[in-house]
């Protein structure tokens, strides 16, 4: 067939149009990728050391900000994560969704914490986005008046410290600790925000919590490093764990001024912390059933991770909980902080060349074993508490209960050190099971101390 010139012109124009359109699209795509690689961000607003609102930071860093806002998700893993449960809002607690109650899942926790506010309301933790609301409205607030100290890790504090301390964050820290919770709550606005971990000029990581600065200084002093200043002496990779360690740690409120203290002056392992509490004579509460001076461990993720193989290999919290993420030619860290089990390819496969199923199975094996041992330890502890209670009711004199009470204090802290830790043993599998083994033995020894020797 023979095309007439006008048809030929049209056909050629059509083909040329498609080819040129494709080429131009490719050219633009290459240009976009080149721009992405050249400009890690565009400065559309000026961030200063007084910019608290994450929305403002998000104008310069929209990708990170979008990811940061995703911590509202409520997803379960096999042994952790939260489920969204509906509830009827009340005047005192306007939340319409909460996480599942851990106390209902395992009533042994109520026995363990009897007489303490945790026995009244204790739920699975939700994402960073909920930290402020979940603390403001927890049922524990109704049982015991909480101090302002609690806010150190439930709100964006940097600017509040600066305002209350007249520019001195340590003074501001001391001021917030002394306030009642309700008053201190009015001084804060946001859950943890950009400024709590980043320097607004350079975006470098920095520690803003005085309690961590003091805690790590005491820990380094115990290791022979004098006058450790975390913000000038830590390496970049260390900071990728230290900024998380500002809050994911064991702590207590010291003295009448309710100062937040991380008990690391003798070391960071569970026995070191127990020794420290013995020395300073601290107790969190008196156990209602047994009368023991009891301790409650709180989410010691930083301490547990320190005993594990990942810490030993120089892998920081952010490497697995905020792994790198590619956006075109740009690489950013994933600010959607979450369980690595929900993000296996980026969190694990960068180093471990196995399938996602295999990696998940390995992690869950560690967690299953820890959970099983934790249950054995919990039974031993509950049995000890029952024995002390029965002995008290039977009129056994106080001095004869002391050894069993001391065993309860130690065993309970060890069980809680694994139970309250948010990795079900994964952060340091052998250490977690070792601690539980010690706890089981201590609890059973406590029971033996109440029994008459065989043969009498």
């Amino acid at each position, binding site marked *: 067939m023979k095309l007439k010139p006008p048809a030929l012109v049209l056909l050629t*124009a059509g083909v040329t149009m498609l080819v040129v359109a494709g080429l131009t699209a490719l*050219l633009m795509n290459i240009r976009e990728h080149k721009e992405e690689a050249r400009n890690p961000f565009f400065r559309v607003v000026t961030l200063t050391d007084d910019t608290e609102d994450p929305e403002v930071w998000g104008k310069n860093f929209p990708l990170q900000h979008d990811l940061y806002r995703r911590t509202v998700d409520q997803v379960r893993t096999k042994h952790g994560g939260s489920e969204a449960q509906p509830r009827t809002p009340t005047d005192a607690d306007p939340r319409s969704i909460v996480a599942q109650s851990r106390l209902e899942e395992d009533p042994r926790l109520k026995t363990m914490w009897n007489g303490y506010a945790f026995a009244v309301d204790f739920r699975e933790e939700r994402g960073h986005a909920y930290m402020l609301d979940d603390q403001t409205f927890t049922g524990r607030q109704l049982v015991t008046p909480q101090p302002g100290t609690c806010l150190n890790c439930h709100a964006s504090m940097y600017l509040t410290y600066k305002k209350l301390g007249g520019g001195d964050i340590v003074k501001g820290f001391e001021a917030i600790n002394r306030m009642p919770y309700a008053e201190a709550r009015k001084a804060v606005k946001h859950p943890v925000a950009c400024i709590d971990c980043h320097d607004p000029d350079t975006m470098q990581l920095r520690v803003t919590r005085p309690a961590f600065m003091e805690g790590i200084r005491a820990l380094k002093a115990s290791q022979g490093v004098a006058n450790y200043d975390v913000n000038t002496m830590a390496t970049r990779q260390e900071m990728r764990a230290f900024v998380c360690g500002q809050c994911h740690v064991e702590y207590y409120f010291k003295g009448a001024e309710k100062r937040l203290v991380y008990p690391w002056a003798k070391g960071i392992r569970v026995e070191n912390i127990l020794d420290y509490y013995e020395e300073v004579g601290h107790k969190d509460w008196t156990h209602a059933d047994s009368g023991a001076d009891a301790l409650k461990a709180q989410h010691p993720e930083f301490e547990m991770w320190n005993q594990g193989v990942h810490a030993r290999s120089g892998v920081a919290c952010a490497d697995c909980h905020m792994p790198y993420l590619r956006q075109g030619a740009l*690489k950013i860290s994933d600010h959607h902080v979450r369980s690595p089990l929900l993000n296996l*390819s*980026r969190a694990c496969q960068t180093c471990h060349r196995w399938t996602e199923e295999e990696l998940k199975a390995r992690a869950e094996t560690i967690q299953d074993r820890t959970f099983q041992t934790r249950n054995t330890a919990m039974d031993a502890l509950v049995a000890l508490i029952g024995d002390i209670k029965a002995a008290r009711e039977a009129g056994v004199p106080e001095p004869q209960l002391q050894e069993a009470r001391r065993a309860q204090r130690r065993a309970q802290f060890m069980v809680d050190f694994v139970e309250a830790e948010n990795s079900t043993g994964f952060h340091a599998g052998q250490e977690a099971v070792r601690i539980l083994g010690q706890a089981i033995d201590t609890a059973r020894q406590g029971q033996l101390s109440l029994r008459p020797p065989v043969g009498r």
Partner: protein
Amino acid sequence: MRYLPALVVGASLGVIAGIGGYTFVYAKGASYLTNDPAACANCHVMNEQYDAWLKSSHHAVAACNDCHTPHALVPKYTTKGLNGFWHSYAFTTGDFPEPIQITGRNRRVTEGACRECHADMVHAIEGVPASADDSVSCIRCHRSVGHLH
């Protein structure tokens, strides 16, 4: 206007060649025909691999092409052509697994490269494999010689 069709076709080819040529130059197309390892990190996807190679034990003796393409001319450029197309396609569409993974074909090419340079060594240790999958793999143990990731 007898020459109109020819003019139209010629102009069209010219436009395509012009924009195509510019795109080729702008995208540093010619660099991909060379042996320069920096070219492999042009688009930044291979930055980690490139950085790691700079510090690796093979850095002084082998560049990207020495391990990732066959050594004979025609297979070498066939491999470069195939990878060039698929890498461009993946990077443009953004459709690729993360962390990036080597394909089966490229893994075989790399294994072949190990065996070619280290022939004296591997002849002595390689028995007759029971099946194709059963042979000893160099990079299973020596994964970090080129670059760890």
